[in-house]
């Protein structure tokens, strides 16, 4: 039974790729000029944003090291969460806020690089500060005692010793940028078209399937190769608490970068709220018109959460299979456009309805990310118990029900809550599969696309509210279950 479950999980996760591969035929049809132009844009945008994110993020990380000494642990944790918001929130929020903040906005490659940097700089800051604490603690103390200078410590300790980790961080961001569809779609303009956007244009606008298929193959190969190369295990450190001072590495001004990214996404939408409401009124959007899209957004979040929850339970049941653990770490989820394309192909044989397609597509896109983010580590820490249960004669389902589930309610529902939140804010897959703005994120995207930025930002508050409900529902569910059935 567990083997069957494993087969079902792998089948579902691989099905988008299988559907796309089923359509390939030789010879490839590819417009070389368009392809090279889009590929060049993709590379430039990915390179620019990842280099900038790493440089500014490392500065932010050194700033966090300084701040860590000034704040209580609790306040510091809150600040870390705040800095992670641009990465964790659906990219729609960052895009719309940036469009409102940077006036005039540099549409095109620069715009994409700017937004990707705003998204990533806080993440890099937090990761880098933790990396320093994890790997440099002893070295930092020793350097201080031995009387090493700041420049010497930064050169030998930070740059030289942490160089490989920083490089992997760069590669990770680079691959994320290569796969990004949402940001270039909204702000890439005509000069920033990437491979992902070119596939979208061929598929949805020009209806040139053969070209889209060839481009998809190329994108699959690139993303697959990057995914195999850049695994979480490449980051050669574990986060652990440290009380080291690392005074030699601190740089308080570095905090400006992640703080500015947070400011950009949180503050301007507050100030533009009154004018946004006026603009909504002006374009004759009544509150009554928003009830259905708001409910659809909520439904999208809750249903995607439910399917994700079931997938995550399945992943926990088959966790003891070494093959699964390796697969889950190596698997690269399809990007929004590849997922959308595979549903176009599937629709030739089975019509499951647009809403179901979006729910299933988002589940497949987010599953591995939330699994790695929240569940893989707690499951790994239970491995000894799972093995013991197996030796004692328990089957995987029995072990999951009695041993694993009571101990992972919180990470399980937190992973689900994150996925549900992303689903509420999705506009990429939704806009590929649906021609109608049936939920809030699609409405916000259309308003932003039509340069009604204040209205988009005002509507975003409603979307924030819906996202919070969806997130809190799944998160609190974990608390409830944990109190009732957990440890």
């Amino acid at each position: 039974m567990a083997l069957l479950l494993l087969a079902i999980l792998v089948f579902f996760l691989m099905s988008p790729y299988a559907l796309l591969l089923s359509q390939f035929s030789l010879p490839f049809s590819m417009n070389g000029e368009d392809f090279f132009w889009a590929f060049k844009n993709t590379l430039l945008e990915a390179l620019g944003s990842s280099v900038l994110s790493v440089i500014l993020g490392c500065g932010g990380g050194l700033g966090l090291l300084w701040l860590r000494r000034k704040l209580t642990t609790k306040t510091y944790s809150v600040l870390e969460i705040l800095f992670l918001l641009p990465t964790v929130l659906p990219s729609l929020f960052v895009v719309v806020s940036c469009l409102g903040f940077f006036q005039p906005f540099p549409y095109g490659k620069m715009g994409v690089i700017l937004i990707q940097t705003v998204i990533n700089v806080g993440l890099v800051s937090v990761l880098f500060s933790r990396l320093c604490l994890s790997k440099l603690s002893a070295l930092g103390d020793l350097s201080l005692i031995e009387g090493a200078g700041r420049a010497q410590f930064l050169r030998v300790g930070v740059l030289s010793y942490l160089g490989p980790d920083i490089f992997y961080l760069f590669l990770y961001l680079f691959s994320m940028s290569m796969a990004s569809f949402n940001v270039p779609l909204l702000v890439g303009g005509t000069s920033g078209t990437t491979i992902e956007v070119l596939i979208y244009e061929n598929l949805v606008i020009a209806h040139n399937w053969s070209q889209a298929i060839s481009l998809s193959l190329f994108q699959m190969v690139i993303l697959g190769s990057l995914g195999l190369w850049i695994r979480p295990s490449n980051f050669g450190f574990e986060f652990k608490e440290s009380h080291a001072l690392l005074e030699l590495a601190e740089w308080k001004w570095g905090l400006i970068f992640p703080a500015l990214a947070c400011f950009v996404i949180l503050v301007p939408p507050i100030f533009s709220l009154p004018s946004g409401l006026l603009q909504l009124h002006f374009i004759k959007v009544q509150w009554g018109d928003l009830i259905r899209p708001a409910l659809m957004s909520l439904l999208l979040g809750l249903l995607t959460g439910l399917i994700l929850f079931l997938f995550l339970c399945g992943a926990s049941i088959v966790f003891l299979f070494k093959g699964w653990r390796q697969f889950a770490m190596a698997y690269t989820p399809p990007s929004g456009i590849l997922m959308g394309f595979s549903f176009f192909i599937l629709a030739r044989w089975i019509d499951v309805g647009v809403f179901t397609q979006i729910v299933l597509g988002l589940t497949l896109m987010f599953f591995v990310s939330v699994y790695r983010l929240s569940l893989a580590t707690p499951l790994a820490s239970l491995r000894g118990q799972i093995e013991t249960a197996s030796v004692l004669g328990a089957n995987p389902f029995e072990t999951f029900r009695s041993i694993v589930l009571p101990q992972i309610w919180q990470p399980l529902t937190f992973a689900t809550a994150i996925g549900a939140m992303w689903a509420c804010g999705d506009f990429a897959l939704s806009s590929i599969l649906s021609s109608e703005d049936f939920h809030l994120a699609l409405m916000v995207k259309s308003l932003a696309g039509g340069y009604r930025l204040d209205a988009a930002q005002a509507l975003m508050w409603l979307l924030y509210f819906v996202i919070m409900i969806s997130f809190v529902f799944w998160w609190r569910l974990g608390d409830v279950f944990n109190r009732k059935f957990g440890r």
Partner: protein
Amino acid sequence: MSLIENLVVNVDDFQLNIPRWEILDDGITALVGPSGSGKSTVFRVLLGLQPCPTLRWVVGGIDLGTLGVSERRLGVVFQNYELFPHLSGRGNIEFAAKARKLSDQDTQSLLAELVQELKMESFIDRKVKLCSGGERQRVALARAIIGKPRVLLLDEPFSALDEELRDEARSLVKTIIKRYRIPTILVTHDRRDVETLADKISEIKNGKIL
């Protein structure tokens, strides 16, 4: 006497090669060796947690090497016990009984017997995360035994205990194993464990039994 044959495993540059190893049917066979000698790998292979396609281990006419982890019907006490922290001592033991599909009646009578033998009355209903090291060890032993295992495997079972508790624990383990007549494999590097418990001693070095 059960016989382990062709236990051959390659891990990176290390090779474990045990062509033949006899295990006592009654009493404790100790596997002794320094760190890095391959003890833990032998332990994991016997439990079925590490694959070894060549392994042949016949116990009571059944080749355990061909069976999956749960079908081998083994009992185990790991070095850190691997108790289920969200359950009580009773919950841990009942989980093992249920996994082995013991009837409720058998479970309760055997549990009562074990609680008495292992002097667990005062903490059996306490969550194991609140129990002391010695109490946890007794729960782990009872959990390993209740499923009536073909063989009991103990991996450094006293190393997590304070020195003053170890002698008492050793004597308790010895009594229980004699009482239930379960063939036992004890993996240890502690000479005192061997002196107190072992009926047969096998020494392992560089992946080979001497």
